[in-house]
């Protein structure tokens, strides 16, 4: 098991290979469909949202206010990442992201940006909303809550030992590309 703590150095990211299991501690910023389109169109982030050497998490959590008025994440698995493919490479390059957490994998443009900028795609377990919510120790802040709505807002989350698998690395390797190729070839045998 490899431990990653944000902010993450390029060296640490370049050492990761497809298939590596990691546990992440530190800060994650959620960002999904609305955030990616917003940034692609030149939207400006609040100063507190510093993505450099950080990680964006494709996630629309369930967040409740407890009796003391504090936010608490009660469910927080990944959403399907491929929808961000038109935007992700630009955001990796422009904001200096070191990691993208999601599920289902991404395409060639994102893979190229990972190689160029020193970033990896980290696959969390889709649907595992409770196991992953338990890794969130604090909601540090929330941005665009009213404008984007709760699932699409940017939630700044402190996490401890958040589990994921490297499925796209910074050396041009992608588990998703490989599995698609082998499963296509396999299917051809049975048709």
């Amino acid at each position, binding site marked *: 098991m490899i431990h990653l703590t944000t902010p993450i150095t390029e060296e640490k990211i370049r050492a990761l290979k497809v298939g590596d299991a990691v546990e992440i501690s530190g800060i994650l910023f959620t960002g999904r469909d609305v955030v990616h389109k917003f940034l692609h169109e030149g939207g400006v982030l609040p100063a507190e949202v510093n993505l450099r050497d950080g990680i964006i998490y494709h996630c629309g959590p369930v967040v409740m206010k407890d009796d003391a008025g504090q936010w608490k994440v009660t469910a927080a698995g990944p959403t399907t990442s491929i*929808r961000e493919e038109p935007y992700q490479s630009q955001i990796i390059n422009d904001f200096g992201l070191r990691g993208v957490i999601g599920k*289902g*994998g991404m395409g060639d443009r994102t893979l190229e940006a990972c190689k160029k900028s020193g970033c990896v795609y980290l696959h969390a377990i889709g649907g595992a909303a409770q196991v992953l919510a338990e890794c969130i120790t604090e909601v540090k802040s929330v941005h665009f809550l009213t404008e984007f709505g709760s699932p699409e807002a940017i939630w700044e989350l402190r996490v401890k030992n958040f589990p994921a698998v490297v499925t796209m690395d910074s050396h041009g390797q992608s588990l998703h590309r490989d599995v698609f190729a082998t499963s296509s070839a396999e299917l051809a045998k049975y048709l």
Partner: protein
Amino acid sequence: MIALCNSLVELVRRSSAELPDDVHQAVLQSLQNEKKGTIAEAALQIIDRNIALAKKKSQPICQDTGSIIFYVECPVNFDQPAFVQAACMAVREATKKGFLRQNSVDSLTGINDGTTVGLGSPSIHFHQHQQENIEVRLILKGGGCENVGAQYSLPNEKLKANRDLDGCRKVILDAVLQAQGKGCGPGILGVCIGGDRASGYEFSKQQFLRNMQDRNPIAELDQLEQDIVATANRLGIGPMGFGGNTTLLGAKICAANRLPASFFVSISYMCWAYRRQGVTLDQKGQIETWLY
């Protein structure tokens, strides 16, 4: 009305937090079938832990609490508008309690008003029967798996799929291939052969009301169901698309009549977090029994 609303909140809570036993059994079986020490096995172990944790904490199995689809079997004199009102109240309440995410967005303005109620949410299908009992079934279907659903019009030249069962088999397996891990596999397919573009998808989703372990009474469809699962599980897509032995947990297929000109195969993909429950209600709207 209050009793009915409370019953529906409880139906939503249990659907969101507790995987039905038949689905859980299928997940456990798939865990046995994966090679030890692989990332596929590790993924299923996390999934199994998640199922237990959601039940214990009474919180959503998946943060995407999905499209809310009610199927209501009711007597002829049943007050449908009152049920619709109670269901909308229940969805609002379940959202406030965190059993549902604030999950409904105005498609024109992008505004999420936080209630999870709006045109199409919840979706309610009534079916009258010549009996006095009321049965309410609920499916919560997340967006990730909904997005990998597919509808094919046969013949499909690219896939060499003609208007016969072999052609249906080809397009169903193509849908599995295209979905890879994006729909949160291992998945379950609901398929309708025939119908029109709307009814085909509608019938395909109704297949998710079936028990995982049941067998199709129509021999050709039963054979196709078994074949689709066995073949899909040889493709090596595996849990989450990580590679591995379990790509599908099940396939449920029905056939509906079609126009001579049309031959649709509509495929709905359900993620492993296959949330489905049902209750029978008494005349006051109180829960009598659980159906799954």
